[in-house]
């Protein structure tokens, strides 16, 4: 029965991707290649699901693959679970557009695993069963702690899931032109098939396959791009520094400051910090959320229940760190390689965030947009991106479904008295519910700004899950009240701060920008250089308070600029210019200028129509009140503080009585949940 359904889902996904192909990065005549590679990957993962489904009958098999995954396999699966499209395409893109800052950004994603390795992986393996809630319920009141843990798990997974679904839909559309809604539904059906039929075993192997594909693709690309410089770092970076496209990008990014710099200096500037990340406090806040949040991500925690022992859990983190770290080192070459071979301007023209850097580099390496090999490479990278999305989404759905079925239904509603059969049915039903919800949210959120949702997921995980798990595992006096209060306060603070942060859309700013595009800007008189202004206090750097002096960076002297024309006038001028041109290159350049201006004009008009008459953001603010993009700096300490204070205030007999057992078991692994016999 399962096989038929799986086959049906696969056929539907392939058919839907074939039927709705529009325009995208892949030219029409080469699309069959992309679909062939997509089809091969879908067929492979469906076979895995079929194979896994035959071995998935019990609860332990469904949630934890029968604890039969080896350390090496789990290491690859963790990498597959963690390297989302955001890190694979996003970081390579950031490096291609902003150089050093993009690379610096990638470091935190690896360092995060030190926390996982040192304080989370082994204890969780030793005392946990299937979910975050199980760990907290070990010594705290099971009903209360499972309820908050499930809420927090579902919140974190939903944020992450929404970002993945929306990002995935946009990505597939940009790459091969499949309609957004169709790709969201396709991704949703595929991942539901993996999870519902194959449970953790299928999810694990889909993630392993994806990680292997991702690493292979990156290695091949780096081999080609770095290889031509004899694998020498200085020669490769020298090529970056002397590249005209890179220099032009730096000139564009630093604006007036570029006037007194030589071309070489501008190229070198690409290898120096400060082109993208402007606010160091925000950086530290994001760093805290990454380093502490990864260890609190439910779908990552869940992976440690799939291995048989704590030693294997340790081994899996070591493998994961090698793969993830190695991959991020490769992104330096992917990003810089895309910058010199494709060019930042072309990459940003395809996608503002730079997400197309790696796919376009692949196309270039294979021989360019007209060549067969180039398009085969592009097809392969597109397929890897697709596999990335389904693998990450499957892990998230499993985590959210386990919180619903195991924590809420079995733990809280049934008071842990559910028959094994009932538990597996509940798990499958919950997976379907979460899957359908994910598809719905993905479609509903089309066109929304979701970039901040991943940051928010990490911030909530770091401010709510991590303090609760950490203090439950390591602090004798931790109690149920502390865990409940800390998780609620930590997550609510994190979410509330993001709601009033610069991540939200502020209509007045959007309208001002749109008018600037449509109506042009008046001439600016010459400005004298101004020194940097320091904020009057730390609080003023974090919040928009009354009487605060806002921090401003130093501005160099700027020459007077002419008035900039509005979009309509600019178009008229360009068209006039076009009529008088004969040189093919110049005509092409002007045509591109016209296309860009029309695009900007259309967007500005759409923004104007959308926000006209609105003055405040979703929560009623005219401008951000919290000035950081990431709330970690405030919400993480607050989460820890609440666990500590409420634990001290409200004592709990069970939490104290169970401490001895918990501490011995988490350190020794006595009575750890074993592998199920086959």
């Amino acid at each position, binding site marked *: 029965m399962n096989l038929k359904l799986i086959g049906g889902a696969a056929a539907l996904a392939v058919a839907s991707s074939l039927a709705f192909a529009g325009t995208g990065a892949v030219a029409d005549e080469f699309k069959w290649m992309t679909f062939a590679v997509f089809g091969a990957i879908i067929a492979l993962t469906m076979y895995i699901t079929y194979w896994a489904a035959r071995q998935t009958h019990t609860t332990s098999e469904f949630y934890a693959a029968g604890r039969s995954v080896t350390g090496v396999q789990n290491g690859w699966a963790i990498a597959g679970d963690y390297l989302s499209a955001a890190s694979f395409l996003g970081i390579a893109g950031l490096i291609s557009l902003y150089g*050093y*800052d993009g*690379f*610096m950004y990638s*470091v*935190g994603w*690896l*360092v995060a*695993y*030190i*926390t996982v*390795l*040192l*304080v989370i992986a082994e204890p969780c393996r030793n005392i946990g069963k299937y979910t975050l809630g199980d760990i907290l319920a070990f010594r705290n009141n099971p009903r209360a702690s499972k309820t908050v843990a499930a809420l927090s798990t579902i919140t974190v997974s939903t944020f992450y899931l929404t970002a993945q679904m929306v990002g995935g839909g946009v990505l597939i559309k940009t790459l091969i032109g499949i309609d957004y809604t169709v790709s969201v539904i396709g991704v949703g059906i595929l991942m539901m098939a993996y999870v519902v039929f194959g449970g953790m075993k299928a999810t694990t192997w889909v993630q392993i396959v994806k990680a292997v594909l991702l690493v292979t693709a990156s290695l091949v690309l780096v081999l080609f791009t770095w290889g031509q410089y004899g694998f020498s*770092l*200085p*020669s490769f*970076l*020298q090529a*970056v*520094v002397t590249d005209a496209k890179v220099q032009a990008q730096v000139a564009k990014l630093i604006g007036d400051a570029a006037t007194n710099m030589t071309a070489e200096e501008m190229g*070198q500037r690409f*290898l*120096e*910090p*400060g082109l993208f*990340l402007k606010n*160091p406090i925000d*950086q*530290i806040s994001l*760093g805290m959320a990454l*380093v502490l949040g990864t260890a609190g991500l439910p779908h990552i925690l869940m992976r440690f229940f799939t291995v048989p022992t704590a*030693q294997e859990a*340790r*081994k899996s*983190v*070591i493998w994961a*760190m*090698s793969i993830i*770290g190695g991959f*991020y*080192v490769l992104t330096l070459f992917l990003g810089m390689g895309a910058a010199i071979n494709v060019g930042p301007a072309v990459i940003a023209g395809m996608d503002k965030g730079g997400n197309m850097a790696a796919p376009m580099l692949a196309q270039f390496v294979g021989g360019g947009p007209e060549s067969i090999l180039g398009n085969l490479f592009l097809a392969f990278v597109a397929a890897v991106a697709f596999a990335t999305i389904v693998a990450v989404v499957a892990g998230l759905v499993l985590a959210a479904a386990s919180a619903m079925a195991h924590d809420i239904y079995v733990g809280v509603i049934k008071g842990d008295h559910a028959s094994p059969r009932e538990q597996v049915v509940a798990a499958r039903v919950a997976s379907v519910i979460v899957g359908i919800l994910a598809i719905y949210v993905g479609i509903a959120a089309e066109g929304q700004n979701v970039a901040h949702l991943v940051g928010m997921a990490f911030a909530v995980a770091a401010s709510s899950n991590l303090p609760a798990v950490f203090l439950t595992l390591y602090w004798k006096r931790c109690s149920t009240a502390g865990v409940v209060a800390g998780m609620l306060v930590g997550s609510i603070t994190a979410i509330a701060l993001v709601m009033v942060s610069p991540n939200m859309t502020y209509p007045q700013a959007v309208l001002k920008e749109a008018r600037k595009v449509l109506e042009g800007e008046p001439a600016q008189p010459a400005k004298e250089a101004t020194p940097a202004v320091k904020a009057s206090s730390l609080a003023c750097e974090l919040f928009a308070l009354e009487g605060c002096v806002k921090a401003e960076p130093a501005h160099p002297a700027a020459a007077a600029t002419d008035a900039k024309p509005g979009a309509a006038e600019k178009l008229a001028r360009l068209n006039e210019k076009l009529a008088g041109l004969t040189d093919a290159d110049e005509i092409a350049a002007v045509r591109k200028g016209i296309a860009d201006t029309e695009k900007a004009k259309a967007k500005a008009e759409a923004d104007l129509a959308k926000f006209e008459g609105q003055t405040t953001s979703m929560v009623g603010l005219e401008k951000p009140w919290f000035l950081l993009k990431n709330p970690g700096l405030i919400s993480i300490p607050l989460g820890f503080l609440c666990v500590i204070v409420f634990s001290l205030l409200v004592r709990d007999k069970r939490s104290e009585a169970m401490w*001895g*057992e918990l*501490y*011995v*078991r988490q*350190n*020794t*692994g*006595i*009575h750890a949940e*074993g592998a199920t016999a086959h």
Partner: protein
Amino acid sequence: MSKPEMNWAAINADPRFQALHRKKSGFLWGLMIFAVIAYFLLPIGAAYFQDLFRVKVWGPVNLGIVFALCEFVVAWSIAGVYAKRANRDFDAMAAEIIRDAHNIK
């Protein structure tokens, strides 16, 4: 799987378990603090010590790039040091306690 009753409090108080606890927590905290300091030096350096990060040391390779690459090496080294120590010492200490767990009353 039958689980015999254990006297957890007694195991917790056992000198061998206490020795494991002391050794392990001291080691873990040390590594964790080192890792956190090493990591946050990167954004702090990139923001407040830009002149230092700009110094070219190997062709166009500057100290900033060297430092960022070092972060990877540091992370891997910490993982390696921990794994080696845990495989050699902590596992053996835990194994001895597990072997004897039923007799600790």
